[in-house]
């Protein structure tokens, strides 16, 4: 189920990225799109109380890309790297405690930090999660 959810959300995210009216250009690297999809799916699963699916989505689609993003941010955007890693650690601690409500809550700041980070390193903007709506 998680995989299907990821695929569906991925399509939405990529499609939105193409039409996003953001003050940036281009489309984010597929690894970061995939990472954002994973975070969105993890948040949806956690909000539904499904800690196991949240954990799978986070580690299978997002975790490594977030490490890569943090490393890229360390050169020149260290404050953003710190923000990203702090938010990531909070989510990991929630996942270790299998606390889905906390996971859902703490994924919000992590999504924000991820989006900011991708803007910094690539000049591109990730689209919102499918349940966040689109700002006109």
């Amino acid at each position: 189920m998680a995989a299907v959810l990821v695929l569906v959300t991925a399509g939405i995210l990529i499609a939105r990225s193409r039409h996003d009216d953001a003050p940036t250009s281009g489309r984010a690297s597929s690894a970061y799109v995939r990472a954002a999809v994973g975070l969105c799916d993890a948040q949806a699963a956690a909000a539904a109380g499904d800690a196991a699916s949240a954990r799978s989505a986070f580690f299978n689609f997002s975790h490594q890309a977030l490490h890569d993003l943090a490393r890229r941010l360390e050169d020149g955007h260290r404050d953003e790297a710190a923000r990203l890693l702090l938010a990531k650690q909070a989510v990991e601690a929630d996942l270790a405690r299998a606390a889905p409500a906390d996971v859902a809550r703490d994924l919000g700041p992590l999504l924000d930090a991820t989006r900011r980070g991708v803007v910094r390193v690539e000049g591109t903007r990730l689209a919102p999660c499918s349940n966040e709506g689109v700002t006109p």
Partner: protein
Amino acid sequence: MKRTVAVLLGALVLGACGGGGDGSSSAPTTTTAKAGELIAQVASYDLAAGRDQRVIIGLQTSGDDARLVSFGTARFAFAYLGTKQAPSTTPVPGPTVDARWIAVPGQQLPTTLPAEPRLAEPSDGIGVYAAEPVRFDRAGYWRAVVTVSLDGRERSAEATMAVNAKPVVVAPGDPAPRTENLLPGAPDAPAKAVDSRAEDGGSVPDPELHTLTVAQALATGRPTMVVISTPVFCVSRFCGPITDSVAALARVNAGRMNFVHIEVWRDFEKRQLNKAAAEWIYPPGAEDANEPWVFVIGRDGVVSRRFDNVASDTELADAVRAATG
């Protein structure tokens, strides 16, 4: 003497640096591969010639949808490639060793793990293949050919690593630095410099790891385990909650062994390492610093064991038993 150490931990990026191969650095390297092929990533930080040591290597497939190779065993076949100044025209065969898969701590794994290697998602199990002991007879560049059996078919990947003439970081046989690491409540110790997870003005997690300085711990005459890590700012792909693992050991071994956590960063955003961490993992002459590390110190104050990057709960527990036995 106050020494402010500012260092870009770009070296935490596994495979980011090629290393000197001439004794100047042992930063690992990774070979490139076509999508879907196996990639080997050397996870060891500080390999040296002429001594028995552990070598750890991670395996995964290449591409955006990379999968890990996890579980079971692998075989490492090493060959000497020469030095930067004097490369070998043909690789000189070196040791061939068996390696077992060890899990990054903190995962929810089944009690009985698969006996054979398999392609896995990170949620199935993140880890590395570890061989020990491995002895390289000379310094320079070495190639590792890592072979696993996947679905009955042997598949291999290569990686290159630099082996120094001697260890850069504190190693078994060395006297432990009598470090005066920061403890909670010290006037010049912001909580985050004691543990990066601490909130401003808040308590420091795992208080059992912050009751003694290393110098004080060594003075007790008990064995000591020192973990040098940054729970928040770790960027190694094999990061796990190693500090939690050591804290769990501290709780069940209180009174028999000392346990000390040293946070890597004094100030992450300003790139300032804690002086105490630098004494262990960023000695004078080092090109970069890597973390996490775990060191085991005997009653005699001499380092008896060290773990770089990845240490499984089993390895750490065995180390405690060996030190306290």
